[in-house]
């Protein structure tokens, strides 16, 4: 397995961006009267919804239908892709405008739409840049974190067929102009959903740019992709989570546009979609509903754990895989896809616990990572040889006499170790440090 290594530029960009975001969170949390109380409440609200998920989903679907929306429950990524493609084709759509959705990345929606002849354009600036570059997001809230203004200028110039200056304002204006056409021409608007409110059947959608508003105002059809765990019982509960979401993600008190969408346009309204479809996606989430990993379903995708993680900040999002990265990704992806398919991810952590401290909904991320490592051994996913080595090691070093024997052998065997045995591979290009003649314990 090979991991892409960040070059100096990307490393500096990732470092600077994550530092800004994490300082933003710390300042925004400090402005709250009692952030610990709010985090506890947020945790309780999320867990109450997850503990009784079926009932909450039923309530949400009933309220959505009462508001004139339609629900589509999909067990797998394949089913979800097929459902969205079918909705687009049935409405005769040629072009879909998308607002940022990590779930759509998770299910690989864009490729499926394009294969079915439906054009799809990302409208979040960062996602648009990545789509033009043919790349995947490397941060769940700052997807193009590694791109420079020069990179972006080259991509936007290629669309215009004329040079766009690498000045920030010029770039934003070029993207605004290029994407305005997309909003106006699109037949379908596709979004994610930050939350779904059970009591009202509403989708809550937050964006800073306003693209979430435009894709749900201008196209005839709105398709919202909803992870089944993102339900919130009441608007009052939603207010607790909204107080934490933007503060934890970017350090804002609220995201610029926080939108509650409740069904299609009503009589007399001149814009808004005629049809609203909510695609409820499981895709492995049910695996987490029982047992100790269920707390991972509380995640609100703010990205705070990425920004504090020493591994994420040095390795970058690309090292984790194409969708979720950082501590939340290292826990979630193996659980969704199966530990045997992602055995490396639980090791992408120093277990320092910074992620757990930063999590607004108090998911014990580093403990879950440790539990996953335990499962790797327990479920015999780790190779027999590695398990045998660690078993022998623990056998030796948990008995004083054998420990002493092993260090004595170590002193004796050091010159040999570099020549033969398992030490040889390790010793290539390295000098094996000599063990001290007198042990520390003997000096006392």
């Amino acid at each position, binding site marked *: 397995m090979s991991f892409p290594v960040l070059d100096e530029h990307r490393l500096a960009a990732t470092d*600077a*961006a994550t530092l*800004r*975001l994490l300082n933003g969170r710390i300042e925004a949390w400090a402005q709250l009267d009692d952030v610990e109380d709010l985090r506890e409440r947020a945790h309780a609200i999320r867990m109450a919804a997850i503990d009784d998920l079926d009932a909450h989903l039923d309530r949400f679907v009933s309220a959505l239908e009462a508001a004139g929306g339609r629900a589509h429950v999909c067990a797998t990524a394949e089913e979800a892709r097929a459902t969205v493609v079918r909705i687009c084709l049935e409405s005769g759509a040629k072009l879909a405008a998308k607002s940022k959705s990590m779930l759509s990345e998770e299910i690989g929606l864009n490729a499926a739409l394009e294969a079915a002849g439906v054009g799809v354009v990302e*409208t979040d*600036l*960062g996602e648009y*840049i990545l789509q033009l570059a043919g790349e995947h997001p490397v941060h769940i809230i*700052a*997807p*193009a*974190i590694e*791109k*420079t*203004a020069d990179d*972006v200028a080259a991509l936007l110039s290629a669309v215009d067929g004329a040079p766009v200056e690498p000045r*920030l*304002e010029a*770039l*934003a*204006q070029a993207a*605004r102009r290029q*994407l305005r056409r997309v*909003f106006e021409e699109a037949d379908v608007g596709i979004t994610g959903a930050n939350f779904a409110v059970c009591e*009202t059947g*509403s989708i809550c959608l937050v964006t*800073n*740019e*306003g*693209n979430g*508003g*435009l894709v*749900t*105002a*201008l196209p005839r059809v709105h398709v919202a992709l909803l992870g089944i765990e993102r339900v919130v019982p009441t*608007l*009052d509960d*939603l*207010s*607790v989570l*909204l*107080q934490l979401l933007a503060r934890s993600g970017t350090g*804002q*008190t*609220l995201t*610029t*546009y*926080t*939108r*509650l969408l*409740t*069904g299609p*346009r*009503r*009589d*007399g*309204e*001149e*814009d*808004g979609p005629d049809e609203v479809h909510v695609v409820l996606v499981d895709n492995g989430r049910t695996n987490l509903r029982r047992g100790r990993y269920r707390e991972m379903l509380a995640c609100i995708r703010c990205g705070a754990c990425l920004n504090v993680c020493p591994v994420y900040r040095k390795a970058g999002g690309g090292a984790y895989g194409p969708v979720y990265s950082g501590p939340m990704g290292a826990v979630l992806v193996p659980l969704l896809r199966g530990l045997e398919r992602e055995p490396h991810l639980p090791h992408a952590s120093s277990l320092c616990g910074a992620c757990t401290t930063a999590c607004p909904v108090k998911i014990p991320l580093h403990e879950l990572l440790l539990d996953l490592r335990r499962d790797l051994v327990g479920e015999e996913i780790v190779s027999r040889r590695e398990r045998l080595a660690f078993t022998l090691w623990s056998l030796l070093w948990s008995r004083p006499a054998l420990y002493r024997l092993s260090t004595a052998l170590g002193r004796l065997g050091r010159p040999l170790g570099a020549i033969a045995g398992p030490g040889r591979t390790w010793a290539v290009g390295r000098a094996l440090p000599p063990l001290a003649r007198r042990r520390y314990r003997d000096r006392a």
Partner: protein
Amino acid sequence: MNELVETFARNAAAAGFVVHRVAAPELPGAGVSRAAYGIAATGSVVVASSPDEPRSRHLLPEVHVSLLRQDAVVPDLAALFAALAGKLPSALAIVTGPSRSADIEQRLVVGVHGPREVHVVIE
């Protein structure tokens, strides 16, 4: 002017709104919306879709003005939802400043898809 409105005005200015206390400014080409509520704690204006208030009105123009009545200012999000009493419009937008993005090099730029200049007139 009461304390709630003062808090709203302070936080709205901090969020990037130009706050007017007397009359609506003359801004040719600006979109004008009637805000259903204002939120003091965050300095947000709340725009509810209706036959008189299209969803895209506060998004399409480069400059946007919200008209907000003093008695429509509520303390915080929880108070907003309590005031709505479960009766939601088809689209409720809680707007906190101009359209913005930090997607390029984490540097802030305004007016990406929505307005770059936002005004609120407290009446």
